[in-house]
């Protein structure tokens, strides 16, 4: 399956929700420690992965998210605390079409609201989460309850106002933007939590991945105890993602350089596959919404792989 070489170290990969062959890959020079960023837009063609556009930024890019209401709009999370809005239909000189500089530290994640489609979230190392729309140049709201970096914030796929956040303060929080404070606090792991994701079929089910190497599945209504815990990564879990097509299917990537596929319904035998195609920390993984079983991953090894589940990503 196709592989694409990026100039910088990959940080995330996201399938377009509109075009089944399109991906966005934010990358950073020097492993995101210092230097520039570059937002790649790639198309899957019969000739492999082809670069459609690339936008350079003054600082590292850690994450990106496609707009849910327009196929040409993409937002990227930058190390300088800014959020860049790109418009693929605008001339290159006009990009970024917007630059939102409000976070005081690195922006770790961005996530577009799948239900409302007009708003998105950003989470930052400044311990806060911000709520944005494209219409307003300012953030609409700041959620400041975490006491350490917020590495991830993601909308509930069914409820327009509900989102979850994962933080280095070892907690998950569940928020309802109609409420003044967070609704639930889940002391999810004993070490920093780097990622979380909602199940697409069960509105109460949340997964979290942590520096403690484990992935936990939660019913957010009973945060005292996780539903299940999945072990297998040998370093911090960097990203988890529920399948959009199968309720119990998950994919994760880790600093142990592997991408793992899981079925959390089989607690004794949850690990379906461990993929070894990356040679450095695997930090980005996604499952296509439009094509069932299509997976993408990226890594600090400066590669982007797209493959069909069940295949070897490296198979030509």
């Amino acid at each position, binding site marked *: 399956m196709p592989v694409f070489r990026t100039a910088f170290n990959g940080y995330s990969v996201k399938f377009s*929700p*509109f075009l089944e062959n399109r991906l966005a890959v934010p990358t950073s*020079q020097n*492993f*995101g*420690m210092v*230097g520039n960023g570059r937002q790649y837009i790639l198309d899957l063609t019969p000739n492999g992965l082809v670069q459609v556009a690339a936008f*350079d930024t*003054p600082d590292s890019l850690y994450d990106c998210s496609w707009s849910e*209401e*327009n*196929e*040409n*709009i993409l937002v990227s999370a930058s190390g300088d605390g800014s959020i860049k809005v790109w*418009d693929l239909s*605008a001339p290159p000189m006009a990009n970024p*079409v917007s*630059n939102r*500089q409000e976070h005081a*530290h690195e922006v770790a994640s961005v996530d577009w609201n*799948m*239900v*409302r489609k007009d708003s998105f979230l950003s989470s930052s190392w400044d311990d806060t989460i911000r709520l944005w*729309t*494209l*219409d*307003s140049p300012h*953030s*609409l*709201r*700041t959620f400041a309850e975490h*006491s*350490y970096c917020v590495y991830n914030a993601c909308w509930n796929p*069914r409820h327009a*106002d509900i989102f979850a956040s994962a933080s280095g*303060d*070892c907690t998950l929080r569940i928020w*309802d*933007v*109609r409420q003044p*404070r967070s*609704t*639930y*606090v889940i*002391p999810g792991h*004993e*070490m*920093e939590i780097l990622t979380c994701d909602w199940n697409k*079929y069960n*509105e109460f089910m949340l997964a979290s991945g942590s*520096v403690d190497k484990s992935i936990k599945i939660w019913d957010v209504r009973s*945060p*005292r105890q996780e539903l299940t815990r999945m*072990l297998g990564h*040998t370093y*911090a879990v960097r990203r988890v993602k529920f399948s959009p097509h199968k309720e119990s299917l998950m994919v994760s990537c880790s*600093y142990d350089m592997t991408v793992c596929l899981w079925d959390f319904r089989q607690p004794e035998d949850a690990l379906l596959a461990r993929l070894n195609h990356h*040679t450095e*920390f695997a930090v980005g993984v996604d499952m296509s919404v439009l094509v069932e079983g299509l997976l993408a991953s990226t890594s*600090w090894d400066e590669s982007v792989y797209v493959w069909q589940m069940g295949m070897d990503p490296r198979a030509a």
Partner: protein
Amino acid sequence: MAFRDLVMGGAGCAVPGQDGASSSNPLGGLADSIIGSASKTQERIREMPGLAGASQAGPQFGRNGPLTSLPGSEFNQAQWHDGQVPEYMRGFQSADPREFTDAWNQSVERWPPPPQLSTVPGNQEGALFSEFDSIYGQQAGPSGAPLLDAPPQRVLNNFLHSFFDSSRTNAPFPAVRLPELGLSQADKRRIRDRSHIMGRHIFADKGDTFVDSQVNGLLHSLDIDESLGAQTRGPLAGQIPEFEQLWKEGFAQSNMQVVPRPPMSLGTQWANEFHSQVGPSGAPQGWADEFDNLQTGNNWANQMQEQQSLSHLRNGQMGNMAGMEQTRSLVQTLSQNQDPKFQSSKFLQFVSKMSRGELIVEDNQVKSATTNADAWANEFQQQHPESWAAEFTAGEHQFRGDTWANEFARGKPEPVTTNDAWVDEFSKLGVKDWADEFGDQMARGALGDDVSSEWVDSYDQFVEESVRGEQMKAGSSRFVYQFADNNPYVGHPNPLKEGQELFRRGLLSEAVLALEAEVLKNPDNAEGWRLLGITHAENDDDRQAIASMVKARDADPSNLEVLLALGVSHTNELEQDEALRYLRGWLQHHPKYGALVPGNVSEQLIPSEVEGLFLEAAQMSPEDSDIHTVLGVIYNLSRNYVKAISSFERALQLKPRDYSLWNKLGATQANSSRSAEAIYAYQEALDLKPNYVRAWSNMGIGYANQGLYEESIRYYVRALEMNPKADNAWQYLRISLSIASRNDLLDAVERKDLSALAKEFPL
């Protein structure tokens, strides 16, 4: 609708001057088509779970309101400074124009107003939006920062890679001297903050001490001051202050019985980790390995601690040793790691580079911020810190050149003191003992049995070579002068005169032979030794220069130049007390300034007092360039490079033709990150003395510091053509070739084939 505004606003920026060109704007059509296609494609994902269920509110989450505005925005009071804002916020889709009137008016002066689509309601936002874009676009466009693609970028990248890679090896991250990478303060702050946070994700298993030492190694190597700028985001240790309260609130709110589990101290994590994870029956294969790793990690933490306290105990003298200690442990740890992925990692390349001497492991002590930047020592190699001494002696010769013949004629008393001081000094370092011990441990098989892969072998070899080197230095051989074989000048009627003549003509290698003949004939001739030391120094051969200078001191313990040279050599070794003692001794023995030094010299040396003595001397005779030169050296000792540079500049005003002073000025400028100016100073030195080998190689260093590696190679090669024995220059040449991706020429370096190198890199 919102998107249409966005597109039109954005396009407006690119089409200045079309006021209100709405529908006639060709980009309007484009926007329509885009929006059209967007809505079409949206159809396809309607079937997706979650999207369809948007209106089915879950009982726990309450009722979903109509999607007219984002609810909850009014809670964000802190965000809005003026009272009117919440009103604006309640319906952000119809913006309050007052909010932005001022900004807008201002922007009109600088920016042509974008075209507006009158058919789209609420389009003022679009206009305002584009206005912000214009401003932001100017500030933060991709053109705002240059891409870091210069050669230093490759060094930095490889280096950072080895930092992150060290998570897999459990090996300590050694502080390594890197060429100047031209990192700005902001860059350094970024690296510091991000390495603190990301390091904790990657090294989490190994405890806080390990994380700190890794990060310190990184920061030290990149010359990043821990106390730089804003406060670092620290680790999460123990209870988070706010956590409990937040928890209680959350608890009260959700009305559930949940016991909070505060994060544990990371330091004790691995043991618990092991206990908690050994339990599950479904533990995947590979857990045993995992445990091994963890154990190693713990060993490491202990070792690191021991090492740190050790080096702290013995203070600065242990720098080199700490580095070697780490190297030993590194080899030990690496040899245990059989992970094939690791074996093919770039870390391997990093290590093997070290084994070839392309990277030099340096003093890895965790130092306080003020002593963090070992720029002085860094300028020259760790192994040859004496260079400045020799260097300085060369300068001395220049000032005193007219009188040395007289001094020689005067004759010398038998040396009263032996080199006891040196022996004592040296045994304090304990390098030999340590080296022996290290050798023993190596022999006992600390490396393990299955050291099979090539790179470990080569690393092993490197370590052994280093040990041998240390033993050489540690043993009596360090200051034993190595005479050349078959010296044609032996038997010459007056080799000293011949040597002087050759030195003046700039034939340094020949001059060395003649002067060797002289000191073989008259071993007690301090002047012969001194001139020999100067010649070696100018020829960039530090070891021989120091050996000569020690002999000169044996022959004449009160010789001013020699005292000064020794003061400088201790400055190089960062032995402040010794350096100051010799420098004060210089002043004491000086016929003019001796009276300045109080009669009963205290053993306690305070840098500011010695500096004060020289400042007094400078007041006495402000036209004495020697005094300014010594002040420059003292300021170098305290790393006060600004003052050091002005002292050398003052000395140069008085002696503009002193090439060694120009060289000192250049070296100091290079140390204070002013390598471009250093090039100029070195050029002055070379204009005055074209055969000044040291200045040629320093010039190379100056270019390398600026990332101009190819340029630096030319200068190293020129220096080596003049004196192939200049070991430092060979080392620097290897580094530059490697960074310039000319590894193909490393063979030529091994063969010492200068003609091949000069052909590739003509000057």
